[in-house]
């Protein structure tokens, strides 16, 4: 016990450098986003009116606060493009997460039933694609899905279609890309809970006469809910803000919020509105983020 206390002091010093770094490069930038979201757009470099100048003294600060405007947020709420972008992002994220659960669950379930030695290998096999570049994996799908790509060639050769099908720049292509990229994030938490499960419970249920689907639905699935929750949140949150996959694989008719933000920032150079949109996105995501944190806390307590 005393040794722990002696250890605690130098360990606290270890916090200093990463603490300062995170405040400087994580917290302070957020203050800037917030500040700029409240300022006016201007055609200048940078393209916004400074809200206040710290050097200008207290009086200037007071007048500046009086001039803070919520115009950018009002614009967001009234502009259909933004409203649609948020709605579309949430719809895509919900659909993709459901698909991921549907595809990832049987894989995780199969992994958990492998003999012990093979489980470690299966886990490595699932993680390795996560290590290979994400952009490259999306690009690999472009190779397959494009007009004269592999998929159309195979379909034509098998005489399943008479003309090449348009796969690229459709929502289906986007879902394939998202499912492909996020699959490890869904499989790993599911596998973690399924592998820990006591096989005797399932055996007992089937000994008592439950058919396999009932064993699964009444015993296995409810017991795996913590893993389901973790996997769903781990996929859902980043998919909402996804930018690269829809940009490369989906059509350009309706944009997700990540793309809209990007366009506003780089093409329209309306930084105040882009900042306001980022803050709204963050607030939207705060609910699942807090849920995730609570889930993790509960799992930690259960683990003890």
């Amino acid at each position, binding site marked *: 016990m005393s*040794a*722990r206390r*002696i*250890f*605690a002091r*130098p*360990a606290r010093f*270890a*916090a200093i*450098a*990463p*603490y300062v*770094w*995170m405040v400087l*490069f*994580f917290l302070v*930038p*957020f203050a800037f*986003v917030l500040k700029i979201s409240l300022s006016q757009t201007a055609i200048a470099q*940078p393209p916004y009116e400074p809200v206040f100048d710290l050097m200008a003294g207290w009086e200037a600060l007071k007048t500046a606060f009086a001039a803070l405007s919520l115009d950018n947020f009002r614009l967001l709420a009234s502009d259909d493009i933004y409203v649609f972008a948020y709605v579309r992002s949430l719809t895509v994220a919900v659909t993709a997460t459901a698909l991921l659960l549907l595809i990832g669950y*049987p*894989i995780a379930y*199969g992994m958990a*039933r492998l*003999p012990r030695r093979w489980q470690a290998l299966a886990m490595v096999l699932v993680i390795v694609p996560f*290590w*290979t*570049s994400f*952009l*490259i*994996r999306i*690009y690999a799908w*472009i*190779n*397959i899905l*494009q007009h004269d*790509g*592999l998929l159309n060639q195979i379909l034509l050769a098998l005489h399943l279609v008479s003309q090449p099908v348009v796969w690229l720049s459709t929502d289906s292509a986007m879902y394939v890309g998202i499912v*492909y990229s996020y699959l490890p994030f869904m499989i790993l938490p599911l596998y973690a809970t399924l592998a820990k499960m*006591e*096989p*005797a419970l399932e*055996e007992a249920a089937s000994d008592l006469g439950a058919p396999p689907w009932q064993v699964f639905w009444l015993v296995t699935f409810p017991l795996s809910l913590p893993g389901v929750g973790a996997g769903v949140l*781990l996929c859902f*949150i*980043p998919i*909402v*803000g*996804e930018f*690269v996959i829809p*940009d490369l694989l989906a059509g350009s008719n309706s944009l997700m919020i*990540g793309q809209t*933000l990007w366009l506003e*920032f780089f093409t329209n150079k309306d*930084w105040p509105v882009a*900042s306001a949109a*980022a803050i709204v996105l*963050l607030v939207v995501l705060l609910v699942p*983020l807090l849920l995730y*944190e609570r889930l993790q806390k509960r799992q930690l307590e259960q683990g003890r």
Partner: protein
Amino acid sequence: MRKVLRLSRFNIASLTLGLAFLYLPILILIIYSFNASRLVTVWGGWSLRWYREFFNDRAMIEAAWMSLRVAVSSATIATLLGTLAAIALSRGERFRGRTLFSGMLYAPLVMPEVITGLSLLLLFVALNAERGFWTVTIAHTTLTMCFVAVVVQSRLGSLDRSLEEAAMDLGCDPVRAFLSVTLPLIAPAIVAGWMLAFTLSLDDLVIASFTTGPGSAPLPIRIYSEVRWGVKPEINAICTLVIALIALVIVMASLASKLSSSQGESAAPL
């Protein structure tokens, strides 16, 4: 010994299909990088033509070189800071602002990259910093140190504390006990953390786009702007090279952890 449930045909099928789904696209990409033909549709025999093309493409080489430099420097700084953060969180018990500290460390793991990139760009613009190598490195360090902290912290958490306590009972001061007992034990996690940070940085497109300057672009940005205009066989070759590099890093990481775990086993009976 726990009983193992029988593998059903359904289990085997879903595993096979799942792994095929994960690996086939990458495999196809690698095969096509050796295609002599310009068209993806036509197989023109094996050739290294697109690799030669890549090595003659100055802009691409420069982008790859910048990516490598950024990945090495940001992974190194991130490993240093992330390890310190993990020590503070798992050994520091309570200190002022601990909740804020752990919150800041976990937030970037789940936050959309667009927001992280945007906020850092606004900071750099406000500071009037010249954007390029250093701003990208700082941005990548901020993101990847969080991953390092998680990896190292989980290893520290599973470590037997009595080893440190024994060292201190034998007269080591805490810092010495840490350096000679704890650090070797968590070394594999630190190595794994560095590798993860390195590959994440090498891969990052979104944050790099926000934080890089007009003149310099890391490799993913170059690839991205090429890919938007359609498939070019040269990109297949570059992607295969990146995959090979990452595979090398993974093999090295697994060797490092195997080496240290076998050392641990042989040291245990003594």
